[in-house]
């Protein structure tokens, strides 16, 4: 590998192009009046950031955290046994199950949910947090299941057998042996599904009917209004948690499927 003066330049170009779109978001979030054609805002203002402390935003933040935490927990609860079956057992129809579990990644959740919305209305799930959580399992369970299947495939089941031989029941074995061994994968699956749910817009809009107001819904209407400062400030609030989570995730996750999931967020 030769070290040339071009090296730094190339790295800089890649970094600038990657970061460039976020620059106006940061600038607008702290801009006062910023008229065309000023390249930079002539004055800064805290109005945008102050908007974030308003009741509407705090409420939406609470709803977002509630929905995403519930979705991540449920997706892991559903994905854990499925991952165990796929990772540890060879059975007939295994490929079909794998294919079915990947279907939500290929068949778009929007197309699926349009047909189901009538039933969400009929069973009283429309316009409720419960309904939104339920529908968001569609894009999240496939990732939880495939991450946990991969983790189970690497799992050394001798530890579980040893625990059982020594007299531990199935619950104790699960709590004290299996789950600790699976912890890195569970953490990754939780963070990843949290992230997908955190960014979800159209399913929340469709099933929540605009009444379950998460941060993306608030951000969307802010973008549609002409208040760029409000939109940019909200944009920062929406973007910071996932970016920080993923940078933290970089340390624990090495699996491709995790990155596939992150990019679907």
């Amino acid at each position, binding site marked *: 590998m030769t070290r040339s003066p071009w090296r730094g330049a190339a790295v800089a170009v890649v970094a600038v192009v990657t970061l460039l779109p976020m620059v106006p978001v940061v600038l607008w979030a702290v801009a006062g009046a910023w008229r065309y054609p000023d390249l930079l805002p002539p004055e800064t203002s805290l109005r945008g950031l102050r908007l974030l402390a308003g009741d509407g935003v705090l409420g939406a933040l609470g709803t977002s955290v509630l929905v995403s935490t519930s979705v991540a927990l449920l997706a892991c609860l559903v994905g854990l046994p499925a991952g165990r079956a796929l990772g540890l057992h060879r059975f007939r129809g295994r490929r079909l199950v794998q294919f079915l579990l990947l279907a939500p990644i290929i068949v778009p959740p*929007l197309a699926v949910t349009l047909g189901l919305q009538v039933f969400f209305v009929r069973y009283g799930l429309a316009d409720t947090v419960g309904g939104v959580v339920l529908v968001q399992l569609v894009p999240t369970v496939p990732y939880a299941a495939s991450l946990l299947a991969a983790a189970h495939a690497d799992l050394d089941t001798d530890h579980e057998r040893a625990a059982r031989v020594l007299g531990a029941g199935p619950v104790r074995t699960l709590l004290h042996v299996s789950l600790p061994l699976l912890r890195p994968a569970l953490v990754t699956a939780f963070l990843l599904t949290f992230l997908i749910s955190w960014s979800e817009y159209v399913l929340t809009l469709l099933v929540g009917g605009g009444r379950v107001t998460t941060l993306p819904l608030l951000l969307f209407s802010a973008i549609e209004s002409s208040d760029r400062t409000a939109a940019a400030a909200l944009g920062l609030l929406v973007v910071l948690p996932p970016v920080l989570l993923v940078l933290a995730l970089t340390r624990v996750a090495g699996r491709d499927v995790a990155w596939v999931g992150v990019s679907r967020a």
Partner: protein
Amino acid sequence: MSRVRATTWRPGPRLRVVLLLTPALLVVGVFVVGGVLQAVLQSLGFAPVVGESQWTLDAYRRVVTDPVVHDSLLLTARVSVISTALAAVLGTALALLVRRLGGRRRLAALFHGTLAVPHLVGALAIGLLLSPSGLLSRAAYRLGLVDSVQDVPALTQDAFGWGIIAEYTWKETPFVAVVALAALSRRVSDLEDVASTLGATRWQRLREVTLPVLAPPVAAASVLVLAFVTASYEVPRLLGRPYPATLSVEAFQRYRDIDLTSRPEAMALAVVIALLTTLAALAYLRLVGGLTRRSL
């Protein structure tokens, strides 16, 4: 009354697999399989809960002959093919560049960060960057390239879909790069070294060793990108025009239409979207089958 104690009863291996899989299959079965079935049925005139069902192909007839849908299909195809191709080429190039440059970890962290940006924020960012009064336009004014907002070519809410393409390319290029970087392992370097020792030129090494190794994962990533881009809603809704809109936006608008006869059309469009993405996935499976047989 059987008095079998719970602790002594253990399900057989088959039953155990079934029990383990039940929750996940229930989610996929009810929502995905059920959802697709419902979309198909409702596009054919099935009206659950409200109204009477009348079986008819009218919705498909209306959709197929509607010039709005033709334009929508054209836009969707254009946007998704161009974005996917750009992301695949740029992502692969970026991965090769990063590998040559070193400093891999910092740039990889940058890509990971970009992956985590929600598309909604991406749409906001691209809008603030490329719109007529956006940052690029201001920079162009400063450089004397344009004299007023009116001179700036429309890059968002444009008829071609450049704004949408820009957002998808910006978000999906790092994704392809991350996947490609993961594939460029030590083993690949070893193979390249072997090729050099055998007298391969740089170009031959790239064509005969590196690209064949990269092709399957990059193709896989591209199909995921294509499926996602074809069906995603918020980016074309914010960066595109109301007309022509992409298929997903069109489907959603018809679903929300007060005129209830639009519902079956929305379902028909949903079925078309699902078909398109499934076809893309099947094409990919064949493609990857061919690619992996050829290489290594």
